[in-house]
C-alpha cells in the first residue's frame, strides 16, 4: 500500500513514525515544502532569547526519517489533489530519491513537477497565520511568526539593528497567545515592544479576567507597553520606519501581526472535500473521501473543534496510525490537556480555556 502524507509538522511526522513502526511493508512518502527538518513550533516563541535556537529547534533532520524508511520529499509543494485518479501533484526543487512508480515529467530548470499515487492520503497541512482582511494590502510591511522560515527572517532583521549597537522598536498587533509570547520574548531579549490588542483584556479567549489582569502586569513590568481596545486600521511605510494607524499614528522599526491562525484548507476545498473552518473529519479522522484522512491544526472534528495543540495532535497521530494498521477499532476521543502561555514570569491562577 502507498501511504502519502502532506506536511512535516508534529501531525505528519508523528503519524509517519508510528505507522512505520506498526507496518513494515507499506510505502510511506511524506511531502513537505520545509527544508530544515522537523522542528518544534512552540519553541518559535522563544526565538529571540535563545541564541542557538535555529539549531536547537530542530527535533529531527529529514535524513533521520529517511533512515527509518520514510521517504521524505522536502522543498516540494503539493499543488493539487486528484481524487478520481488517487494522486497528488507536486512542484519543487527537491533532490531526493523517489518511489519508483512516480511519473517524472521534468521541466528544464531546477524546478520539477511530479505526480504521486496514493492508496491512503493523510492531510497534515497545519495552519498559516491569519491575516485580518484590512491588513492584507500591507503584507510587505509586516512579519508573522508561524514557521521557522518566519523566525529566521525576523532574527535576520533584528540582527541588522543589533550589529549597529541598537535594539529595534517593535509593534505587535494581537494580544492573544502568540502575540503575548512574542512580546514577552522580545522584551526579555532587550527590545522595545508595544503590543496592540483589539479587546479590553489580553488572551480573553483562554484566560479568566483575573489572569488577564495578571498577565498585563507581568508584561508591563517586563517593559512591554500594552495598548488595549485598539482598532488598528492599517499600516504606512515611512523611509526606515513603519507606522501603525489607530486613532493616532505611531512609528516603529518592525511590525509583527499575530492575530491567530488559519487552517490550510485550500487544496482540500479545490478537491471538493467538505470544509468548515478546517477540513471536516468524522470521529475516525476520515474526510468526506474515504481514502483521505486529516489531522492536526487542519482538521475539524464533528463537534466543530480544531485541536491545535501538540498534545492532542500527537494523540491523533498515534491513534490514526494504529487505526490504519488495524490495531484500533474505537474512534478517536480527545485526551485531557491544557496549555500555558510561555510568557516569562507568568503563571495563571485559573485553568486555561482550551
Amino acid at each position, binding site marked *: 500500500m502507498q501511504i502519502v502524507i502532506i506536511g512535516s509538522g*508534529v501531525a505528519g511526522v508523528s503519524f509517519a513514525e508510528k505507522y512505520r513502526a506498526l507496518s513494515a511493508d507499506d510505502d510511506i512518502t511524506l511531502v513537505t515544502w520545509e527544508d530544515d527538518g522537523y522542528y*518544534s513550533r*512552540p519553541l518559535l516563541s522563544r526565538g529571540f532569547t535563545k541564541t542557538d535556537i535555529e539549531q*536547537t529547534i530542530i527535533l529531527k533532520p529529514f535524513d533521520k526519517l529517511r533512515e527509518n524508511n520514510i521517504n521524505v520529499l522536502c522543498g516540494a509543494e503539493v499543488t493539487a489533489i486528484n481524487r478520481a485518479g488517487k494522486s497528488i501533484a507536486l512542484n519543487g526543487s527537491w533532490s531526493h530519491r523517489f518511489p519508483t512508480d512516480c511519473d517524472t515529467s521534468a521541466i528544464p530548470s531546477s524546478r520539477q513537477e511530479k505526480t504521486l499515487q496514493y492508496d491512503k492520503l493523510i492531510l497534515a497541512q497545519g495552519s498559516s497565520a491569519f491575516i485580518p482582511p484590512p491588513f492584507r494590502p500591507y503584507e510587505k510591511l509586516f512579519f508573522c511568526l508561524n514557521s521557522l522560515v518566519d523566525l529566521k527572517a525576523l532574527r535576520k532583521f533584528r540582527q541588522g539593528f543589533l550589529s549597529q549597537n541598537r535594539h529595534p522598536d517593535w509593534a505587535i498587533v494581537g494580544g492573544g497567545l502568540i502575540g503575548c509570547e512574542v512580546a514577552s520574548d522580545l522584551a526579555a531579549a532587550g527590545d522595545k515592544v508595544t503590543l496592540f490588542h483589539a479587546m479590553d483584556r489580553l488572551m480573553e479567549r483562554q484566560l479568566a479576567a483575573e489572569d488577564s489582569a495578571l498577565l498585563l502586569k507581568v508584561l508591563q513590568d517586563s517593559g512591554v507597553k500594552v495598548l488595549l481596545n485598539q482598532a488598528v486600521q492599517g499600516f504606512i511605510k515611512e523611509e526606515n520606519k513603519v507606522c501603525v494607524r489607530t486613532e493616532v499614528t505611531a512609528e516603529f522599526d518592525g511590525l509583527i501581526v499575530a492575530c491567530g491562525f488559519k487552517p490550510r484548507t485550500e487544496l482540500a476545498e479545490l478537491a471538493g472535500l467538505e470544509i468548515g473552518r478546517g477540513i471536516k473529519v468524522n470521529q475516525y479522522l476520515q474526510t468526506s473521501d474515504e481514502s483521505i484522512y486529516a489531522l492536526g491544526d487542519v482538521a475539524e472534528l464533528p463537534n466543530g473543534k480544531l485541536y491545535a*495543540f*501538540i*498534545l492532542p495532535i*500527537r494523540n491523533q497521530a498515534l491513534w490514526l496510525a494504529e487505526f490504519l494498521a488495524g490495531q484500533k477499532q474505537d474512534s478517536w476521543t480527545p485526551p485531557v490537556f*491544557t496549555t*500555558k502561555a510561555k510568557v516569562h514570569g507568568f503563571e495563571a491562577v485559573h485553568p486555561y480555556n482550551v
Partner: protein
Amino acid sequence: MPDYKKYQCGVCGHIYDEAEGDPDTGIAPGTLWEDIPDEWRCPECGAEKSEYDLMA
C-alpha cells in the same frame, strides 16, 4: 518502593513519570528527575528540562 513523582512540560504538556522513565530517549524506568542529564529535552517538543514542573 520509592515514591515516584511526575513532571509536566510547560510547553506541550508532555508528562515525565519517574516510574516509567522514557526508554525512547534512553532514560530507564525508575530514573529520578534529578538524575536525568541537564541536556535531556522534552521528547515531544524539544523544550529544556527547566520547562518542566512537578505535578501536584
